[in-house]
């Protein structure tokens, strides 16, 4: 089986869905000839032509806005926003329209749209290229939010996102775009949305994260194992709708929880996860829930971003903390 990185896996998923369904089209800035600034759409223009691979003007709101109209008419647009930091220009379209076309028309119209965007810090890029405001999107009813954490996951989740009849925001962790290669089946396959993934089984505590933070979290779990601590690791992968069952099953088993995300702490999705647990598994908790997160600051420019980002050591510290209680 070929070993692919996330860029290649997403590219393959896009190509296969476009082959399979002529209604699937791709649009965004530089997605055509340039193949996208991360090369995720490479080769699609040559294969599918300008009618289906659309280089747009520099208009984030317009990109999402026209994609909504396309979707209402019957296409399945996959829009690329060049970085998550530029998605804010499209917030009104996402919140006020994409998420509501179905409910506004009571199901007459729907909006089978995918918005792909690279997200997260750690690529030594300028300001606004390191955002992870997934919590805002999760707080928008009508949207689904998906974050793959590996190439295999990326392809399978993307295919599900494209086939999903509702708008899906597909956040691609740019930090690990090329950092992991793994075997990715050539043939199409899908991974259901709304179901978390247990990355590692364990007994003593539950570690929960998504996206690029999986890596330091798994590293910390592996390290903890050498100390005799058995950590269960959960990759949420679909952030909305959230798979609370998987979280609760694990927490009821382990009684201890560390949640890791790179977004600023306050108002981050970690709060929602903690709240779910505090509502439904309180009696099982043997230690306070700990969040390891980015700080309540803008992500700093590259010289300081490693101070900002949760890393293996910070996760490990949290693991020790909850195990000591």
């Amino acid at each position, binding site marked *: 089986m070929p070993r692919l990185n996330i860029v290649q896996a997403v590219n393959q998923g896009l190509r296969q869905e476009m082959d399979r369904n002529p209604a699937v089209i791709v649009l965004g800035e530089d997605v055509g000839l340039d193949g996208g600034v991360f090369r995720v759409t490479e080769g699609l223009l040559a294969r599918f032509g300008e009618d289906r691979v659309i280089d747009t003007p520099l208009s984030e709101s317009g990109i999402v806005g026209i994609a909504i109209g396309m979707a209402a008419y019957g296409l399945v647009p996959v829009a690329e926003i060049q970085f998550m930091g530029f998605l804010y220009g499209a917030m009104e379209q996402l919140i006020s329209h994409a998420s509501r076309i179905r*409910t506004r028309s009571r199901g007459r119209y729907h909006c089978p749209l995918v918005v792909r965007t690279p997200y997260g810090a750690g690529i030594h890029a300028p300001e606004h290229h390191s955002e992870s405001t997934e919590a805002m999107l999760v707080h928008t009813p009508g949207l689904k939010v998906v974050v793959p954490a590996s190439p295999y996951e990326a392809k399978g989740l993307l295919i599900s996102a494209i086939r999903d009849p509702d708008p899906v925001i597909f956040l691609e962790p740019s930090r690990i775009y090329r950092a992991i290669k793994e075997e990715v089946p050539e043939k199409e396959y899908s991974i259901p949305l709304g179901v978390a993934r247990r990355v590692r089984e364990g007994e003593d505590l539950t570690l929960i994260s998504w996206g690029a933070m999986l890596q330091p979290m798994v590293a910390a779990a592996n390290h903890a194992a050498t100390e005799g601590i058995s950590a269960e690791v959960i990759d949420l992968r679909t952030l909305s709708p959230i798979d609370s069952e998987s979280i609760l099953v694990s927490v009821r088993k382990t009684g201890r929880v560390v949640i890791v995300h790179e977004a600023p702490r306050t108002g981050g999705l970690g709060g929602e996860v903690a709240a779910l647990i505090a509502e439904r598994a309180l009696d099982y908790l043997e230690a306070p829930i700990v969040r390891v997160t980015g700080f309540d600051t803008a992500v700093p420019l590259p010289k300081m971003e490693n101070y900002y980002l949760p890393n293996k050591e910070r996760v490990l510290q949290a693991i020790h903390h909850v195990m000591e209680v």
Partner: protein
Amino acid sequence: MPRKPIKQFSVEWLQILDEQGQPDRPLLPALSPKEIQSLYEWMVLARVFDEKALALQREGRLGTYAPVRGQEATQVGSAHALGPADWVFPAFREMGVGIVRGIPMRMLFQYWSGDERGSEIPLHQHYFPTSIPVGTHIPHAVGAAWAAKLRKDPVVVAVYFGDGATSKGDFHEAMNMAGVFHLPVVFICQNNQWAISMPARRQTAAPTLAQKAIAYGFTGIQVDGNDIFAVYKVAKEAVEKARAGDGPTFIECLTYRMADHTTADDASRYRTEEMLKPWIAKDPIKRLRKFMDIESLWTSSYGEQVRTEAERRVAESVKEFEAQPPPDPADMFRYTYYELTPPLKEQMDDLLNFLKDREPKKE
């Protein structure tokens, strides 16, 4: 300083009927007497609907309502230029367009009563649900036009919005894309000269809105929006041009919002009777009637009959509207996604259980 002029642009204006209903005959569009009568009848129907909606609102039987009065020619004339397969993306004041498209008036009342079932417009009418955030639906129209073009459907997309909408970023991004992609869209800007309390001349320093199209490389034209023939003619040409693959057109219909912005507004705070008066004389329905009079297409008994029939239809619709059963609280959850997600399922069950033992709270 001698600078070289490299590009020239001009903005044109069209009026066919003057205020007295006198036509510039060579310009008259090819409309049969019957068609002209039906235009008149649509306008009267829209007017009667509007008056009824205001009355219902005053009686507390409708929520906030945004009256159409004064814009009937703009709406009916442009809507008449569209074919049944064409798509319409309305803003929120397009009841006249909706009526021409055949949206049941019962649904329009329902919508304005705060009942979502009023937006469940049959798909075949190609009439998108009301968009409240000003200007933000314009990109949807452009996207639909791309889709139609890609599918090779001979479909034109019409999008309606006001003068205020032209200041919004989404107007700009959508217009620009329509130009770049050369799409079959007709932008119908109803310059009713007010955005709530803001007069159009403070909305932009441009003396016409039509000239905004120059920024996007396609034609903008200003028409007398109270002259249904001018509106119809320009719209028809724009639709045909779009259908022929010759790209988008921007039409500024210069008209006037004769009523308050909505029933929640009080226009006397920011405009005088004096300002309104000239526009009463320009009333689009009166103007067509005068023309029809000249052409012997109008008699007072015909006029009465049209009014009575409109009133009957509107009354009927009110009855239908008020006969609707109350909405089902489960509906709140049902249409958020294609399938109820587990959290929604839980929340719905919680609410339904909660309501089971209680009367639904009314305020």
